[in-house]
């Protein structure tokens, strides 16, 4: 049975897919590394939104764990990229040694 909500969800998923295409274009083409990193982070958030809509369509709660997982991984990836862009190194041996 198709309700009004189902139609809205499908339209939203299509819109999110086009937004993801734009993000992928920016990730490949982006003039600087910073643009690519921001696009990657936004792609993760769009992916989370898409999975949430999918969970609503399938009427299941099992996918909510996946959303939280992607959120945590995107957070850690963003921090790692930010540190790499600023410092040029991700894991330091001793923080108080080299500066």
């Amino acid at each position, binding site marked *: 049975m198709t309700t009004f909500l189902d139609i809205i969800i499908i339209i939203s998923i299509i819109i999110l897919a086009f937004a993801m295409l734009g993000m992928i274009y920016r990730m490949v083409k982006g003039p600087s590394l910073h643009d690519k990193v921001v696009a990657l982070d936004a792609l993760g958030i769009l992916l989370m939104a898409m999975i949430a809509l999918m969970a609503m369509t399938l009427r299941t709660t*099992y*996918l909510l*764990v*996946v959303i*939280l*997982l992607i959120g*945590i*991984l995107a*957070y*850690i990836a963003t*921090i*790692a990229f930010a*540190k790499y862009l*600023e*410092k*040029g*190194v*991700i*894991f*330091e*041996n*001793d*923080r108080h040694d*080299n*500066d």
Partner: protein
Amino acid sequence: MKQTLKKTGHDKADRQMNDVFLQFTAKLVFLIVIMFSFNLFFAGHYTPGGGFVGGLLAAAALILLLIAYDKKTLQRMVPIDFRLIITSGLTFAVGLPTLSFLFGTPFFTHQHTHIEIPVFGDVALHSAVLFDLGVFLTVAATALLIIVLVGEAEN
């Protein structure tokens, strides 16, 4: 920001740069992530989760600490050699299925039972948890070692 400041000629700003926000947040978020990792580990077998995802997430939590602090601090926070963790995890993952030979059952036959605990009531015990614990430890330590090896500073 340190490099940005250096480019504009503020060499003196070096000493004042620190990562208060990142270091404080990392300590809080580490607890949340490690708790979610154990939640995923125990949620396996019937719902999404299990040893593999839980181990990957535990490694991610330790990597967050490693990014916010450094290797020396992490070694002081978690004074464990991660190669020993791999070994003990493999021992669990290999030894538990082998134990089923002693009882005359086929390889990987698991045993389960129910016991009564005063506060929690009826609790199901399953020997697959021990196998999953081995997978958890192995995956966590291996992922951590690989990522540290790939991303460490060359000096």
